[in-house]
């Protein structure tokens, strides 16, 4: 789960950079960069959830 979190965060950054290289419209770029940030936040959330479940112990 943590590994998937890392991969999602890096993927989000690659998405943001790809948007800057490949798209020209300001609106399109902004939409892709916001989407990229959401992917990164999803990755961060996965790492946080994994940590929280470890601290709480088995239910």
């Amino acid at each position, binding site marked *: 789960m943590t590994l998937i979190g890392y991969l999602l965060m*890096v993927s989000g*950054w*690659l998405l943001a950079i790809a948007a800057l*290289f490949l798209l020209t419209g*300001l609106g399109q770029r*902004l939409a892709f*960069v916001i989407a990229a940030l959401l992917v990164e936040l999803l990755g961060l959330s996965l*790492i946080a959830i994994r*940590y929280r479940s470890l*601290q709480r112990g088995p239910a």
Partner: protein
Amino acid sequence: MSIDLCLISIILIPLAIAGLALIHQGLGRSRSAAHAMLATLCSLAIAAIVFTLIGSAWAGFPGGQAHTIHIAGKPIDWLGAEPFFATGLPSSLLHGPYAALTLAFGIFAVGLASLIPLSSGSDRWRLASICATSALFAAIIFPLFAHWVWSNGWLSQLTPLFGLPAFTDAGGAATIQVLGGLTALSVAWILGPRQGKYTDGTATAIPGHNIVHVLFGCILALIGWIGLDSAASILFYRASYPQVILTVINATLSASAGCLAAVITTQLRYRKPDASLSANGWIAGLVAGSAGCGLLSPLATIFIALVAGTLVTFLVETLELRLYIDDPGGAISVHLGAALWGVLAYALFAPSTNSRTALLLSQLTGIATLLGIMFPLIHITHRLLNKLIPFRIDADGDWQGMDIRELGAGAYPEFVVHADEFVPR
């Protein structure tokens, strides 16, 4: 550029370090107070030496040498290529003091940033691993991002590369505060909570041992922050004299607004103002305001700091109660949360001739880089470092306190500490 003004500003930065050190040790337990202060000194010492010998070569300075790669025909400046061990410094002084001033600023900036994780790892983080983490931070993590933002790296070259305004970080909100905050988050996750912090899934309040130190540290931090914001603005954004004066005004306003927001929020939520959260609000205001210091109007700065001061009180609670992150000094909320808000808020309030959307896109690209590249780099390298030099003190040390366990003597030997002093009577 005014060399004298820049030098005076740089000389003030250690007061911010002293302020943060007092805040960190005051918010920790009394049984770890001496350890916290010694860790501050060691961290600062290691960061200064490692950054001068290794990190400064990769951080570089505007107009210095750099490694460049070409992607889709665009030259991406990704790493400084100055000589190691600062051997290029004597010859660069012949052409002016700019490189030396940048190095002096970098030493204090990396020292300040490397202190931030000490707060989240307070009361359980071993001194040896603190030193190793500071070395890693000063050698690789800070120089990489500092080059991208402040030394003509790709984030400061968004205009020629992609037709966007450059990513702006006038006072180090991203380069110093967010990087420090991300490291603090990583350290808190690796260390886990202090023993006794969570019992059956319920958080126990472990109050700081000296709130007077904490509040005095806030005053020192303000003076240091004025120096930090001014020096960065002069060195990397060619701030004029009036802009430096505006930086001084904005720094004071942001600390004031952040603190008042936290005082009012805690008064409304808990019926009494909370001193430690108000101190966090003061620092959160400074942190958020540093993103656009000297570039934003006083009114915008006050608004940004008010939001930061309010935000930090909720973030501290969310991290502690919902995410089980034990951060004794609130470093993650203050340095990561408030700084990210400050970086974003710059795009919303900056007086700019560019389109607001373009400015927002630039700032979001910087934030995406911090979260998408810098955090995985920080967390993975810290986890590897934890395998080599375990971060966490053993269970006995956790109860004894770091002073006795690692230093052999307490900070307050004449005081008797009762184990049950916080038990309700």
